[in-house]
């Protein structure tokens, strides 16, 4: 049974939007794209984790 084009359009649109959002987040984590601020925030978190680890988690 042939899938109606309406279903295909909805699926393609929903999947494309999802991928675009994920790509935007991914690029943001890499410091690029519209969410480039995410990269800085992530580096800061990683640094905090490293510092705490080196000092020992309980200070």
């Amino acid at each position, binding site marked *: *049974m042939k899938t*109606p084009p*309406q*279903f295909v359009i*909805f*699926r393609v649109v*929903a*999947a494309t939007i*999802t991928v675009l959002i994920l790509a935007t987040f991914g690029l943001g984590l890499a410091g690029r794209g519209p969410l480039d601020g995410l990269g800085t925030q992530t580096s800061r978190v990683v640094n905090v984790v*490293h510092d705490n680890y080196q000092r020992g988690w309980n200070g």
Partner: protein
Amino acid sequence: MVIDALLACAGLGLVIGLVLSAIGLVAGLGTHPRLVTPSGYRDERRKARPARVGEFEPDRGWPFYFFRQWQADLGQVNEETGRRYRAIWKWPAEAFFVGRHGSRFWWWVFFPIPVAFLSCLVAAGVAIGACYLLFAAVSFGCVLAAGAVWGAGAVILLGLDAGRRALLHTEASCPRCFHVSGWPAYRCTHCAVIHRDVRPGRLGAIVRRCECGTLLPTMAQRAAWRLRAVCQRCGKSLPEGVGAVRDLRIAIFGDAAAGKTRFLYAALDSLVTTAQRAHVAVGFLDRSSQDRAELGIGLVRAGRDMPRTSAAPTVPVSCQLGTGPRSTFTHLFDTAGELFRNPEMYDSLGFLGHAQGVVYVIDPFCVGWVRDRCARLGPAGLPRDRSATDDPEAIYAAVVEWLRGGGVAARTQRLAIVVAKADLMRERGIELPADSAGIGAWLQDSRAHNLVLAAGREFADVRFFAIASQPGEYGGGRYDPAAPLRWLLGWHADGGPGAAGTGRHAGADMGERAGARS
């Protein structure tokens, strides 16, 4: 060092999660989708809400995406992704927790290995969950947006459809089984499957897709000209345009030999004459109607007697006034007078309840004083053909009783009381009045006052006519036989109940144009 290793494992898990989500998305939506088929959807709806008496099963068409398919898609993506995620958990879970791949003890002695695996898998799970939630949110947003547009459109179109139907009376009436429905059923142009409800709805607002994939228009006013209409009850074909044009059903009743059949064909003949003058096309909706009309009109024009109407179930003479969407389908039911005398035959009067207009034909020679006066004139005093013998009020009472018994609101119907044989009365020196009030008064004076008073109470509108079924009276004569039909056809244009306001139809237009020309 350890934290970096853990972060690296988690990062790898995120990548694995993203890849699995992508594979799940492609598999769930593209390669292995779960399709909610028209039959499946119909079964679900049937189960959720079984059809009640008088209702039909839901149509077999593809439902609009947001009614059902988007849930199936979300479920399938979840299933496809989850199945793969469970598969990558299988070996580590068996090794670290069940002990199928060596001793659990030794695995946990070298604990960095299980910890690395588990952190990677947990991170993959988190990534898969996040991706799925994102996809679900996006799908929901798309469905919400489409639903809002669809809902608004469907509500507007449904309102327009219902409004048009109510204002113009575009019901679908079957000339064979007398079934009257708000709209007809339509056959798919490709697979001939019947679609019983083509209104905007779950299967589509503007168009719907049949199970076979063919696109069909919604709304009777669009489907009427592109699809083949069939009766909702008997499944027989209906004329093109049914459900989209005004459908007027007129029942003619009266005592046996009152002149009903002659009136019908004379009225039809006069109507055709008027229509030709006004350049309005008149056609017949089926071959049987055309044959009977030609025969009847031929007898009227030749001045010959009409054969007695059969007491078999009444078959209407169906004609079309005008062409295209502005035309009017008119069904004229000529009922044998014997049917009203026999209570066992009442079942065959089903069309009476669906008629918007009712014509009661009275033979003036059954009025006592007229008979007496004509009898005094000698052997030629009374007409040579048969005459009705019963009291005019008796048949009227039988019809009203039938309508009341069947729960039909007679107050929604118009009644034309027609005193026939005005030409024969004139030949005997009795001149019937030509105006409605005058004829009403004449009937009251002729001991039919109960009929006149009751008719005014029991029907939405009553008008009295005197007619002569003679070609000389056609086209606006004093006793024009088409006058009652013209009055009933003008129902929607003269400001009466259910007036269309803007809806102009062939019946009303014709009268005006003919009047303007004369």
